[in-house]
């Protein structure tokens, strides 16, 4: 991982963590966007670095919330969605959804950032 990639990864998580306290779910899209605006990424990393950052942030956050409560609700939601009743799959899906949203927003941020810098 290059230095910019690492910085983007860390900054995305920090922005997302801060914004999540007072903005709705799309704060992760803002985090991916803003971070990519300032820390320009290349090729596949444009999507995957913020994707991975938010994937980690959401899935770890979800795991912490749920494991403290014996996955009581996660098991039920994993029936509802339906994910075979497996809470870990639900956590995985949570990470994927958040990561995907952040990654797409980051592509937009990346393109906008490079245009502005020119």
């Amino acid at each position, binding site marked *: 991982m290059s230095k910019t990639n690492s910085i983007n990864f860390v900054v995305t998580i920090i922005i997302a963590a801060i914004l*999540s*306290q007072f903005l*709705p*779910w*799309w*704060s*992760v*899209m803002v985090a991916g*966007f803003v971070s990519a605006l300032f820390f320009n990424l290349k090729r596949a990393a444009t999507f995957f670095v913020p994707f991975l950052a938010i994937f980690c942030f*959401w899935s770890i*956050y*979800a795991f912490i*919330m*749920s494991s*403290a*409560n*014996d*996955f*009581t*609700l*996660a098991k*039920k*939601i994993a*029936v*509802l969605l*339906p994910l075979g009743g497996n809470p870990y799959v*639900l956590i995985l*899906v*949570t990470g994927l*959804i*958040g990561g*995907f*949203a952040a990654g*797409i*927003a980051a*592509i*937009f941020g*990346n*393109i*906008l950032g*490079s*245009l502005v810098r020119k």
Partner: protein
Amino acid sequence: MKYIKLIISFVLTIVVFYALNTKLGAIPPIGKFLNPAGGVWQNETNEVLDGNVNIQGLSASVTIHYDEQLIPHIFAENEVDLYKAQGYITAKHRLWQMEFQTHAAAGRLSEIVGSDALSYDRTARRRGMGFGADKSLEKMQEDPEVIAFLEAYRDGVNSYIETLDAKNLPVEYKLLDYKPEPWTTKKTALLLMYMTKMLAGGDDDLEYTNMLRKFGKDRFDLLFPDFYDITDPIIPKETDWSYIDVDITKTPQSELPQDTISQTIEKPHPDNGSNNWAVSGAKSVTGNPILANDPHLGLNIPSIWFVMQLSTPNHNTMGATLPGALGVISGFNTHVSWGETNATRDVLDWYKIKFKDSTRTQYKYGNDWKNTNVRVEEIKVRGAKTFIDSVIYTHHGPVTYDHNFMGDNEKSGYAMKWIGHTGGNNQRPFLALNKAKNYEDYVTALKDYTAPAQNFVFASTDGDIAIWIQGLFPNKWKGQGKFLLDGSNPDHDWQSFIPQAFNAHTKNPERGFVSSANQHPVDEQYPFYVFNDGYETYRNRVINDFFNSKDTFSVNDFKNLHNNNYNLKAAELLPYMFKTMDVSSLTSEEKEIYNQVKLWDFNNDIEKLGPSIWRAWWYKLYPMIWDEFDSETEAMTSPFAYQSIYLLTNQPNDPFMDIMETPNKENAHDLFLLAFKEAAKELLDWKATHGEYHWQAYKATRVSHLLQGLPAFSRFDLPIGGDASIVNATSETHGPSWRMIVEMSSPPKALGIYPGGQSGNPGSMYYDNFVDDWAIGKYHELNFLPNATSTNHIMATQMLTPSN
């Protein structure tokens, strides 16, 4: 090129945002829903039960002790504070349910679930549910104290709603992506209407009208007698009614309209019912009266009940509350205990309306034309246009059926006359019961109760037991309202009501016990018109036989009776079937099933095969007997089980036994065999896919989430026996929604349990923690605290404090 990429990536971002932020079909807005910082993961927690909460408008601090079952024990300085706290605490655990049930009552489900609920909502509006709630709120305005309590409750609920932000909304709001609206006093009135519809919203008048026209009076009376040959009424037969000095309404000389009706609105579920009973001190092992109640309602989660202790310096009450209504509904206080069963009575009639012309502004009444009113019902539909349904009102009530709804004639319709539209202050009686100290207080409390009529059982520490059948009942002429009535004939109106003092009741009867199980309230000697409107004929006899079987009873006997699985219905038919059925044509597989059911002891226990065979057999047999009434063009109903079995065993060659579509002439004995063969086939098929058909698996009792029975939030295949018509009245979806036993020692000792849990949050360990114990017939002790300083078995304490 750069700009094209920019635009594409921007559009893509917007699309992703929209897709993850929007509810798509049944899928919640998935980004919002799965966000760990605000979505469903935030509900993955038990409730916060301690600390201080500031509540506006409290006059003093309120203490809430939570015991290990998450039962709140509320200690307030006065009643206004008490009901404010009740509103707050109930909302804290059950907000979504409170709103959902009252939306259902008001016919507003389409607002949250979309057009799927439109027909449900239209039916609710055409029943006049909102109209009835307005009427009862009008009536309650005459009682400023009750209005003050309703407002305190409302403010309590709203104080809780104000503490919510998007992230701590109950799960169901996140799933359906909507927000709670403020609670109102009307919502409490709507909840009471919800109960009235559930318990007193049934009738078969239109079906009976079709059947009377088609088969004639003699045949109809054979199928639907006013009284059965056996009646074991709630009020003992030997009761002397000579004190009643008001006459039954005289039957007018008139004709009934003989219409053909093709379809009717949905009826309340026939398995709604209840048991209650009490034994006197003399009949109790300890010398203290003992009382029990188990209302059989839909087995839903969150449960219709929420257990609470409600206390002020002047009274101390505990028991089952209805989220949305004030006070305890089935419970006890320091001095008395009480419980309800449904007092089925015909309080819903239909009147044929003849409009003057298609403008429908006037209808015929006597020799004149009377004006109609219009109530415009605006049904908001999520994701679609608002549906406007204008319902015409006559002096009888709403014209439910007209050319816009299940009818086709522009100039006529059927108006509903329903006790639910009369307007009643049905919150006050419960609040008065909560504070009752003796029999006199109980009688006074009940006086103004109108609907849904209930059999109120009572026991006191003074040693009294009683039961009053209380509701507002029209004094009908014999036969009035069994069939469609003529809305233009003033003689067909309800002429008067039975004076409240003449409602049937009994206090300290000689036999030493009182009981009710939705059976006939009285026998033919009662001077007012009562006919069999779906009265239960089995549970009551098992209960009364039990209390006649020995001298004294204990709490343990009460538990056993709640859990009694004896199937009297099967016991009254099966031996006759064994005797009269020709078994020579049975295959070896069928013979094996036949032998299994022959060995059965008539107890619907979970491990037995007999109950499943009986069920399969009876479910095949019953429609074969009554194939005459299976019609697409005319709404009809079938006789009740008791009369069906009476005819099978006493008139086996009656023409009704014949299956019309076969060339042969069948009698009852032929039907037994035909039904048995079909049942055997079904059981064998069932066995091939599910394994052995023992009763637990075959019946498959479930407790279903209120929202369309979402499987993720429901419980299935519970290990509980019984069935409808059995004292343990647990069918697939209905059963003892609350079981309570109270011994009237000082202070009273009580047991209670219901299939659910105190928390409405599926993420809480208290969401369904009572279900398993309930299924196996266990009870929990109700921790009746003497005062706020007692902390016996208390796990957390929260203070509600006045905010300045």
